[in-house]
């Protein structure tokens, strides 16, 4: 449902199921998979969004990763990158590392409430496919920083692996952005 929306946007994902499922739908040059350094996907997204105000940047995050870098919610609130959509898939589980419960399991910790309390204005908390679709449409249309916390089942792909080396992913992602910048600077009549 989200995939067609990601066609022309810089996308940063976390490791594990999130990266693998996006890759399996079909890799695009504008996808960067942060396969380690848990918690930093939203910081990478912030760094991109603040410097490329004309791009809509998408971060695909998870509860375990956000819990490792809660300060990011406050930093994002402070700088309010209006061109960033931060989607947190909350499966309540450290799925990729054995499925241990995370602190959000059974609603003990409410990430959407934490995002709101950090000072983020547009936070949607959804738990259905329909609800997610509506929240995503709103967030992509809105010219403001938006967070969507979406409750999902703790189910991942049955395999992990990509035909893409990690530095290769970084080099190609950077190239895609550079090409977009060049295209945006070139007047249409000169093409």
């Amino acid at each position, binding site marked *: 449902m989200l995939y067609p929306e990601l066609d022309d946007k810089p996308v940063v994902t976390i490791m594990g199921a999130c990266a693998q499922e996006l890759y399996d739908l079909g890799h695009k040059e504008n996808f960067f998979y942060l396969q380690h350094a848990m918690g930093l996907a939203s910081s990478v*997204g912030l760094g991109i969004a603040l410097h490329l105000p004309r791009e809509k940047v998408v971060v695909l995050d998870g509860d375990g990763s956000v819990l490792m870098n809660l300060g990011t919610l406050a930093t994002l609130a402070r700088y309010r990158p209006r061109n960033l959509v931060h989607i947190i898939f909350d499966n309540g589980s450290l799925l990729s590392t054995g499925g241990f419960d995370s602190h959000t399991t059974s609603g003990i910790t409410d990430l959407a409430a934490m995002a709101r309390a950090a000072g983020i204005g547009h936070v949607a908390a959804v738990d259905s496919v329909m609800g997610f679709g509506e929240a995503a449409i709103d967030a992509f249309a809105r010219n403001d920083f938006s967070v969507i916390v979406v409750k999902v089942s703790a189910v991942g792909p049955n395999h992990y692996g990509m035909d893409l080396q990690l530095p290769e992913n970084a080099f190609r992602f950077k190239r895609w952005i550079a090409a977009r910048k060049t295209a945006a600077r070139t007047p249409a009549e000169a093409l």
Partner: protein
Amino acid sequence: MSVSYENSKVVFQGIKDAGITSLSALPETWLGLLLQQAERDPDVTLIQVAKEEEAIGVAAGAYFAGERHILLMQNHGFLAAINGIVSLAMLYGIPLCMLIALRGHWGEPYPWHTRGGIVTEGVLRALNIPFEYARSPKEVGRQIREAYTFSQSSLSPVALLLTRDLMEEAL
């Protein structure tokens, strides 16, 4: 002991002369005057983080966006950022130009800074991060420029350690 206003200006000018347009930082005493100048400068984007490891992500994002970015932090913040440095910057070949305030070293009066100060160089060596000490206002501008150039050509983290000699007023 107070922070050197003159040398803070020299360091900031060095950053500007290196063509840097974007900074991520966590404020600390020695960096305070420098960051005030960055805040006032309309040509520089300053992103203040809640913890230094975030800045590794922000720097990677700025690099992807094609921005000339450096990081300013205390050495204890560097120690707090290591997983990001290893598992984002080094793993993906993303350059980082880090200006690190070296607290807890020669002349340090405060006990709480000392352990971090003592281990900083050893940790940099263990991580194979190239580093230099910045001690003189005459050299620091060139050192910043060279650190940035080397980070970009090596696709590696590099560190310039801002020492007490540079950052504090001489007695």
